[in-house]
């Protein structure tokens, strides 16, 4: 960010007298605003798409009243959520009750900062990108637990406890399944990971096709991440038919809205991470985006990235409307007896592969065979 500010100061002469830190701060605010607008738009449109997809899958129409074909439904929903009365139960712990949605929202939203949208489109290319995502998304569990506890409702408490156990358990396989991408790139930065999948191999440059273990770890990651973000079939914390909605049952108005937005934010983060770490990120197949003029390169790579990420989101929605829900003991068994050992073995496999074949993937070896 500072480097960008420096180049901006050099490029725009009137800024020369302004202290560098003000420019940096200004840039940060602008970046945050852009990301926020993107996240909110995605979450709004995402909720509409979710309902339309649900309608399609379930042999019905879905929202069709607000605007042409119902495309403005998300605005109506948003306005409704903001205008609704904000009810705090009489026996709730008021401070924690108010605090909880922010934890959840911040946890989900802060992860957007390191999402590599395009070749130069990233709010902060942290050198610990993946680590940062794992860290900030852990905030969600605190918020969920607080919400469950502060509501003073037994169903909410059960939901909160389930969520805490689930998210903490599944963080391990999620992290372990992402490490192969880190190993291949040799960096924790998401931009480096995406760049490592570029080159002229096209889609075979993706980590997904690097070797059998990375192929496997993509599915491990996707499964575990579904669980970590409480998506069906792992939506136990908000199991509607059991816990009546779980930890957010006592929330109304915009406080509920924040939980809701965070859920979609998480959905996008999972899609974005799997795109960046396994599906080549913003790389355009058989083409170096870096060689294009800045604006076109970024637009093209942004388009590629969003296409892939949205395809993943659609798959998540499809899964959500197809599968039933696991039971809590089955969920824990799946994490500790299957996913955790599998991800460890998988990680070992990737490491050995990289050691034995000196970092080369199968497509790379085939390509070098043919010169």
């Amino acid at each position, binding site marked *: 960010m500072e480097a960008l500010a420096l180049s901006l100061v050099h490029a725009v002469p009137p800024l020369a007298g302004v202290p560098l830190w003000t420019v940096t701060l200004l840039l940060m605010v602008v970046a945050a605003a852009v990301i926020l607008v993107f996240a909110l738009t995605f979450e709004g449109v995402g909720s509409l798409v979710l309902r339309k997809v649900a309608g399609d*899958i379930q042999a019905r129409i879905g929202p069709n009243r607000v605007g042409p074909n119902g495309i403005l439904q998300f605005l109506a929903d948003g306005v409704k959520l903001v205008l609704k009365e904000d009810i705090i139960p009489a026996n709730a712990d008021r401070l924690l009750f108010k605090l909880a949605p922010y934890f959840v929202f911040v946890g989900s939203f802060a992860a957007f900062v390191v999402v590599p949208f395009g070749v130069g489109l990233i709010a902060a290319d942290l050198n610990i990108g993946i680590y940062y995502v794992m860290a900030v998304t852990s905030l969600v569990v605190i918020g969920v637990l607080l919400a469950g506890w502060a509501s003073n409702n037994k169903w909410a408490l059960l939901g909160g406890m389930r969520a805490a156990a689930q998210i903490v358990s599944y963080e391990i396989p999620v992290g372990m399944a992402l490490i192969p991408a880190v190993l291949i790139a040799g960096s924790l930065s998401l931009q480096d990971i995406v760049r490592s999948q570029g080159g002229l191999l096209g889609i075979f440059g993706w980590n997904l096709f690097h070797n059998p273990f990375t192929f496997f770890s993509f599915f491990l990651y996707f499964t575990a991440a579904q669980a970590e973000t409480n998506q069906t079939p792992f939506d136990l914390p908000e199991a509607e038919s059991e816990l009546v909605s779980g930890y957010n049952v006592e929330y109304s108005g915009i406080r509920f809205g924040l939980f809701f937005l965070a859920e979609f934010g998480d959905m996008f983060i999972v899609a974005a991470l799997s795109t960046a770490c396994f599906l080549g990120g913003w790389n355009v197949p058989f083409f170096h985006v870096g060689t294009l003029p800045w604006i076109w390169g970024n637009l093209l790579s942004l388009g590629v990235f969003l296409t892939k990420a949205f395809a993943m989101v659609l798959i998540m929605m499809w899964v959500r409307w197809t599968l039933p829900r696991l039971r809590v003991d089955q969920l824990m068994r799946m994490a500790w007896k299957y996913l955790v050992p599998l991800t460890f073995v998988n990680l070992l496999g990737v490491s050995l592969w990289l050691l034995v074949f000196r970092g080369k993937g199968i497509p790379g070896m085939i390509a070098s065979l043919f010169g």
Partner: protein
Amino acid sequence: MTTRTDALPTQEMTINMGPQHPSTHGVLRVILTTDGEVVTRALPDVGYLHRALEKIGERVTYAQYMPFTDRLDYLAAMNCNCAWAWTVEKLAKIEVPERAEYLRVIVCELNRISSHLIAFGSYTADMGAFTPFLYAIRERERVNDLFEMLCGNRLTYNYARVGGVSGDAPPGFLEKTKEFLDYFEPKIDEYNNLISYNKIFVHRLANVAVIPAEDAVAYGLTGPNLRGSGVPFDLRKDEPYSVYPKFDFKVCVGTGERGTLGDCFDRYMVRINEMRESVKIVRQAVARIPDGPVRAKVPRLFKPPVGEVYFRSECPRGETGIYLISDGSVNPFRLKIRTGSFVTMSIFEKVTRGLMIADVVAVIGSFDIILPEIDR
């Protein structure tokens, strides 16, 4: 050196599940005592929907009681209508024209299909898969269309009459019924492919709340819940009434195909398979339905002879038995209705002990209870 012997003190939690809860299928209240997620006791508390249907029966005439039977089990109103008609006919020894009996069998079996569709759909929704529910509703809609064609109503039909049915099938009804059957039969395989044998679904149901055959008999379970435990008891076969003996169908029983005999999955599968058998019965009935009148001559001011009668018939949720005492006046002297769901609730506490909260939902769904039938 001292060692801590007292563990962290814990306490059981009492939770009210219902009367407003999405998965109790109505206003059932279950008082759960849980140790974390494990249920130590689940006590069903019924009675939130009591409308004194039996007492009302003593104040209205035999014909006037027919619409009340719609409210006995609103998802299988046809079966309840016919049960009432059959009871009164048995009491008064009325001969019913054969065409009327065929029509009754057709509507009863169609209603069994639509009722089992709701059972299947809401069960999958309880298990977290919402989509099959809407598929079930889609098919049920076609049954409702058929019934609307027949009697004008889509939920509370009031179709049967003492001595027959309210009206003959309109032209095209039988063809439409056949069309529906052709459309519906492949859908059952679709359900099986989509959800019945889904691994998660099977894992949720198999070996959960196993009811051995002896227990099922001892607690008086009937209908699919009894057959799910492997007892091949079906009143349509074992105590035949109406024209059922003329049809070829088999009694579906649980086989323990994915777990233990008598678990939730068996009870679920019995319903799925029964839909197929119902399709078979309706096909035969539609093919063989005779011409003729659809209503016997019953005096307007109908007074059955003095006496008492008990008639039971196979409703989708088990045996509906109606006990009726007549003092020779225009209204019944005493009416008692025995319903499948109410009796089923007696075993609820026993089978839910030690299960998880999510399993309680699975058990309620596998019993396919309906609250108006429990509370009457």
